[in-house]
Every structure is written in structure tokens, then in C-alpha cells.
């Protein structure tokens, strides 16, 4: 530890200009970011977003320079460094570098983000988990790979070229992966496996370099990682894993609602994206308790069309494919989104076909509701968030530290008029969707909740309204099947010229 502190002090003394620039940019971020949380400046609405974007580019670049200069102060590549024949311990040296990053990257960023959270009405101390998660992402995606690259290069120029080469290499690998495996699926646990690989290998390369200075091996590890990840994607039995994930048949029954009111009757060509036609089918999920919902990410569509005047018989099975559908309880149908290859669609679009749909779903249930009085000033809500009522727009503006980790259902009383001239209150509902956490400089994740009433209209929320916030939790995972004996697909294909939306939830 003493050696780490000693080397750290030397690095801090040597790299003070780089440290100063990095801290100044973080200070600028602290000044600019709050301007982007509220309403843009009417005179120069472009200024702060532009500055914010510029800083989000400049700060990582500064950190790249800082990491390179830091590691290259005791370069690990080469045979002329004076320090390698001095009593340095590898862990003392690595510890010094990590101490430096904590002191001049993590800590200043933490302070800036804590102040920004406080400014947005969020309590920084309640955001320990999101902070750790954000720093974890920052480390895994940026700091660790950059440290590893700096450890296998000897100068900043070589490091910068390696970073560029790595970016080109990654883009090429992703492009090839998308080309070779276009129907890429979100395979359960695959994210953890790939994430572990992408963290473990740079970490191993870094430790290998500091402990043994095995540059060739460390470089080989770094070069092999994206290739191994790519091969892993190709070799993964995605369909088997997804099928295993949804092996349990849930005690729910889905039925197709043939009500013509939900059909698309307007003329026009169907919208085709990436060779597929998007269908939206009205379905009702029986047996789903109130205050519950189904989220579907995967689906198998089996289509059978009999031979006739339109052509020969058609059989199509999609295998597990992706969908994003949210299905609600109650008698009103929900929209189930499916895709079909355009050539299959065109062969059967005007003749009745049989559809068998297997949905892989996650069943969510609203937890204990918390009743909170909505105010124009920020007030805390579950999941470490904070909201405020915007009386002008009648919406609920909410903020979360970094991201909203759980979906939240909101019910309460709203008015159909304005807050200054309100109509009688009516039950209304809204929700805050969960978002995927990504590494962010701006720790405030904003969401706006607009309220709707059951009579198919929007409503305005006014200060003083009592709202119930319920955080949703997953209660089950499994499959639900829907059999549709006869359906004419052209009546449910989304059009290029958007028709009036069917009246579904």
C-alpha cells in the first residue's frame, strides 16, 4: 500500500495538466447538464444540448489520454524501462494506477453525478445501487478495456492506433455477426456470459501484463476476445435455451377477438421492414388476474394455408423469434405484434389461414401500492425516483437515478379539463416503463407519464391529486398458446399510410 501511495503521488505530480483538464471538463458537465433537464432556453435552445453532447465526447477522450499517460508512466511493453529493475511489486504498481483512477476519474464523476441527482430532487444516498451499476458499466465498457490496451502498448500513439483498430475490429465483428446470424435472439443468460467474457478477458490481460509482462499473450487474449464472443453467438443453441426458458405452460388461455372493429379496413400496401410484414392481432388473455400483465419477448408462429385457387398449400413455422408485446387482463383485447416474411404473407394474405401462436411470456404483478399526494415540487416515489406535476401539461414528470429498473403502475384521480378550470375528477391510470441501464454521464433519467381514463381519452393531472404507485414484479415465466382457426391476414397488416388506430388497449 505504501508503494502504491508513493507511485500514486508521483503520477499525480507528473500528470497534473491532464488531471486539471479532466476535472475542468467534469466541472463544465456539472454546469451544463441541469440546463438540459428543464425546458430549453428559448433564445438558444441548441446551446446546452450541443455543449452537453460535446462534453460527452470530450470527457472520454480526456480519460483515454489520462489512462494512456498513467499506464505509460511505467510502460509494461519493452526492455528499456528503468523501473523493471527496481523494487516495484506488480500489485503495488497496479494498485497505484487504480488508486489514481479512483481519485481522478471515479471520485470526481461520483461527486458531479451526486450533485446532479440532488439538483434533480433525487437523493444520492438512495442511489447506491445505480451508482455501483453505472460505475460497473463504465469500468467494463470503457476503463478496463482502455487499461488493458494501454498495458499492451508502449506509447500514446500506439495506444491511440490500437483503440482505433479495436473500434474498427468490433464494428467488423458485429457486422459479420449480424450478417451471419441475422435472426439474432435475446437468448436468456447470454448477456451475462458475453458480459463476463468481455470483462474477464481484458482483466486477465491486464493482470497478466502487470504480474508477468507477457505482452504477446496479453495481446493475443485481447484480439481473440471479440472473435470468441462472435463464435459463442454462433455456437449457442438459441432456440433450445429459449424453449427451456418458457417450458412451463401458464394456466392462461389466449383467444383471438374477430370483432371487425379491430380490423384494418383502409386500403394501402402493408409496411415491410427488413423483409417482414408486421401484423397486429387483437387477443384476449383469459385467467390473467387484474393488476397483472404479460410481457412477451419471444414467439413461435405456425401458419397453415390450404391449397386452393390462390395457390398450393402453405406451411410456415417461424421458430422462436422476437416480439415486443404487452398484454393486459380484462375483456378488452390487447394488441399482439407478430411478423411474417413478406413472401409468405403475399401468398396467403387474402385467404383464410390457420395460425398457432406460442408466446414466451413473463407475468408481471403490481406490488403493494403506495399512496402519495402529487405536488408541483418534486416528491419521492418508489424505486428511488422522484416526480413532479407539470400543471401546464397535466403530466407527471419523473426522474430516476440513471434508469428506472422496474415498471411502475400509477392510478389516481385526474381531470379532463385544465387544472385552473377542472372538471370532476375521474379515475385515470398511467405507467413508467423500466429502462435498460446504460453507462451515463448524466445520472438523471427522465420519464413523462401521461394519464388516460378508461373512457378512451387523455386526462390531466393536477397538484394535490392522490396517486397510487405500484412497482411491478415478475411472478411467473412460461408459455401461452393462442389458436386462430381462420384469419385473413390482410385485415391485420399494418399499412404504410397509417390507418386510424383500432380501438384496443
Amino acid at each position: 500500500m505504501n508503494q502504491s501511495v508513493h507511485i500514486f503521488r508521483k503520477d499525480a505530480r507528473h500528470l497534473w495538466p491532464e488531471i486539471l483538464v479532466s476535472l475542468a471538463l467534469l466541472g463544465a458537465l456539472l454546469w451544463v447538464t441541469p440546463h438540459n433537464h428543464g425546458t430549453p432556453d428559448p433564445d438558444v435552445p441548441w446551446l446546452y444540448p450541443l455543449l452537453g453532447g460535446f462534453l460527452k465526447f470530450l470527457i472520454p477522450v480526456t480519460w483515454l489520454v489520462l489512462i494512456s499517460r498513467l499506464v505509460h508512466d511505467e510502460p509494461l511493453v519493452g526492455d528499456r524501462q528503468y523501473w523493471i529493475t527496481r523494487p516495484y511489486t506488480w500489485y503495488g504498481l497496479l494498485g497505484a494506477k487504480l488508486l489514481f483512477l479512483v481519485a481522478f476519474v471515479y471520485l470526481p464523476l461520483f461527486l458531479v453525478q451526486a450533485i446532479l441527482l440532488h439538483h434533480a430532487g433525487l437523493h444520492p444516498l438512495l442511489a447506491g445501487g445505480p451508482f455501483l451499476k453505472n460505475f460497473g458499466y463504465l469500468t467494463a465498457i470503457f476503463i478496463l478495456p482502455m487499461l488493458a490496451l494501454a498495458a499492451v502498448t508502449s506509447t500514446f500513439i500506439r495506444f491511440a492506433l490500437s483503440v482505433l483498430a479495436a473500434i474498427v475490429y468490433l464494428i467488423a465483428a458485429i457486422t459479420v455477426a449480424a450478417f451471419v446470424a441475422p435472426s439474432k435472439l435475446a437468448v436468456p443468460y447470454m448477456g451475462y456470459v458475453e458480459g463476463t467474457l468481455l470483462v474477464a478477458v481484458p482483466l486477465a490481460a491486464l493482470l497478466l501484463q502487470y504480474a508477468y509482462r507477457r505482452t504477446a499473450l496479453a495481446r493475443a487474449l485481447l484480439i481473440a476476445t471479440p472473435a470468441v464472443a462472435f463464435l459463442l453467438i454462433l455456437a449457442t443453441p438459441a432456440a433450445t435455451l429459449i424453449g427451456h426458458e418458457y417450458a412451463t405452460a401458464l394456466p392462461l388461455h389466449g383467444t383471438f377477438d374477430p370483432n371487425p372493429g379491430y380490423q384494418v379496413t383502409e386500403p394501402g400496401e402493408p409496411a415491410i421492414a427488413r423483409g417482414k410484414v408486421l401484423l397486429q392481432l387483437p387477443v384476449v388473455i383469459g385467467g390473467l388476474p387484474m393488476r397483472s400483465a404479460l410481457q412477451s419477448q419471444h414467439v413461435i408462429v405456425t401458419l397453415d394455408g390450404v391449397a386452393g385457387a390462390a395457390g398450393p398449400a402453405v406451411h410456415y413455422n417461424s421458430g422462436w423469434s422476437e416480439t415486443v408485446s404487452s398484454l393486459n387482463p380484462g375483456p378488452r383485447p390487447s394488441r399482439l405484434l407478430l411478423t411474417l416474411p413478406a413472401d409468405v404473407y403475399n401468398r396467403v394474405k387474402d385467404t383464410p389461414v390457420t395460425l398457432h401462436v406460442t408466446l414466451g411470456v413473463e407475468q408481471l404483478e403490481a406490488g403493494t401500492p403506495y399512496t402519495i399526494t402529487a405536488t408541483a415540487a418534486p416528491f419521492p416515489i418508489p424505486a428511488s425516483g422522484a416526480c413532479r406535476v407539470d400543471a401546464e401539461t397535466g403530466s407527471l414528470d419523473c426522474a430516476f437515478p440513471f434508469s428506472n429498473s422496474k415498471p411502475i403502475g400509477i392510478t389516481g384521480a385526474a381531470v379532463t379539463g385544465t387544472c385552473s378550470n377542472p372538471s370532476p375528477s375521474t379515475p385515470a391510470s398511467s405507467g413508467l416503463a423500466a429502462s435498460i441501464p446504460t453507462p451515463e454521464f448524466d445520472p438523471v433519467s427522465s420519464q413523462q407519464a401521461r394519464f388516460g381514463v378508461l373512457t378512451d381519452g387523455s386526462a390531466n393531472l393536477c397538484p394535490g391529486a392522490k396517486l397510487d404507485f405500484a412497482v411491478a414484479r415478475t411472478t411467473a415465466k412460461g408459455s401461452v398458446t393462442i389458436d386462430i382457426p381462420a384469419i385473413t391476414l390482410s385485415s391485420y397488416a399494418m399499412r404504410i399510410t397509417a390507418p386510424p388506430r383500432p380501438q384496443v388497449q
Partner: protein
Amino acid sequence: MPPVLAAIETAQLTKSYGNTQALQPTTLGVPAGAVFALVGHNGAGKTTLIKILMNIFAPTAGTATVLGQPTAALTGAAFERIGYVSENQDLPLWMTVRQFLDYNKPFYPTWEIGNLVQQLELPLDRKLKNLSRGMLMKAALASVLAFQPELIVLDEVFSGLDPLVRDELIAALIAQTRRTTGTPATIVVSSHDLGEVESFATHVGFLHQGKFLFTEEMAALTARFRAVTVTFPGTVMPITQPPAETALPQMLGPADIRMPAAPPASWLMLERAGNTVHFVHAHADTENLQAQVAQHFPAAAGISAEPMTLRSIFLALAKSGRVPSEPTPNGPVPVPSPAAYASR
């Protein structure tokens, strides 16, 4: 740490880069307390050997121990006992001399800078990047001498230095071998200039194309080799006899000189120049020169046997063809002495 008899030992130590063998199998022992001069031309393999000894390079084959520790284990605290300075070492040039010395101090429990700064006349407040090469070497050496290492390894640090600076460095080094506190240092100093290490080395090893031509104690080496001039009637020798390879005795008249068909194996570079005969004797300390000359040159009028410089000895060996130019079969091991070559 128990005292180590041999500061450095290697066995069959080899280093290859692809198909190029930079260091042929080498067995070497440097006794503790010695000043070992590792000499050889540029590219002979001196730096490769030193970098293996310092665990900067891994050997391709063979083993080496330094101060009793395998070289592969030389990390961290092991370098509290070893000081290494190289002519092309990357030093933290942004530091001043004072910062450099202060920065190194906490790494060494035995750090005692004493009057080294004054002795080497180091400008403490000047940045390393602004120092001349000689001054930079002095600063690097000061950072090594200050912790009184048991082993000091210097790779070509004297190259290109002016004589004054070189003498200062050598004086500082010699002081380390005579220090009264702690163990006297063992010094390994590499150079491509035989003359610059001759004055203070106690042992010498000559590396040529990755192979030791000889390693020997300096005193034994210089005692054994003599530049011999045999004079015959009618020859006047110069007042001062120059080294054998440059001597051209004046010839004042003919003489009946018969060159021996089978001279002793210890006679190298036997040649006649007018009325004199010159050769290098490789065993002048053990063989009876007078008797040998009398036997092979009965007409000899006088014999002169002069000590030789290290450079002269090596040139004599090289010119006499006793220096092997091909690798020794089956690797080779004991480092051959000049005597071994002389007796082939």
C-alpha cells in the same frame, strides 16, 4: 540472506530470436566481490546476457542464478540488492535529479545517498531530460550506488563518455568494492572497448557472436600472456618495445634465423621480421621461456618479454586463428580460457 560465493552462475544459458541464436549455451560463474568485465564487439550478445540475468528477457534454455536466486524470480524486493544501469535505459526524464533520487529513496531500506551528489557533481535541480549523456549516467549510477547493492550491473554505461566523467564513475564504482559496511559489491560491467574496463576489472569474459571466447581472472590472464621478441646478432632493438602487433624492429644486417617447424603450442603469431622474431606467449607464467627459445632459436642473442594489454591479448588470439568461428558441438559449456585455445 546467506552469503553467496558466486554472485552470478549460469548453466547452458541460451537465447534465440527465431532462427538467430543471440546467446549460445553459456556456463559462467562470477565470484562474489569480483569486478567482471564483459567485453565484446557490438552485437556480441552482452546486452542479451545481461538482460537475461536481470530477468528482462527470459532465456530460451538453460538456467541462471543471481545472488543465489533464479533469474525468473528476480522481481520486486530482489532488486533491493541489485543495481542495474544501462546506456539506453528509459529514465523518467521529466523529473529533476533531486526528484529522481527522492522518488527512488523509499524503495530501498538501505538508501544512503551520503556525499554521492557532491562526489559526482550532480545538478540536483536540473531535469533529467536536460542532462548530458554523461551526467545522465552519473545520475542513474547515483540512484544505484545510494542503496549499496550487492550486485551492480552496468551495460555500456561508459560508451562515449569523456575520460573525466568515466574516471569519476569508475572511482565511484571502485569505492563500492572496497566499502567497509555490508558486503563489498560485485560489479558486472559490459563494454565494447577493452581498454576502458581493463584498469579496474578483476575478471574478464570475452563474448563473441553469442559465445564466450574466454573468461578468466584478469591477473592470471595478464600474467600468462607476454609479447616476446627474440633478437639475433646484428639486430638493434628500439629503446622502448611497442606491443607485438605493431613492433617493427629495425634490421641492421642479415642473420641466420630458422623458423621452427613445430613451435610450442603456447607460441602464438610466430613471425619473423628481419633479424628479429616475434610471438605471443600464452603460458609465460608457467613455461620456461628461456629454455624454449634456446631450444628453437640456438642463435638467439636476446629475449624481451613484455606484458600485454587486454586488447593486445585478444587480437593475438584472434589473429592466430585460435578463436573458434563455429559453434562448439553439443553446446559447450565450460567457458574456455585462452590457455585452452592456445593448446589446441
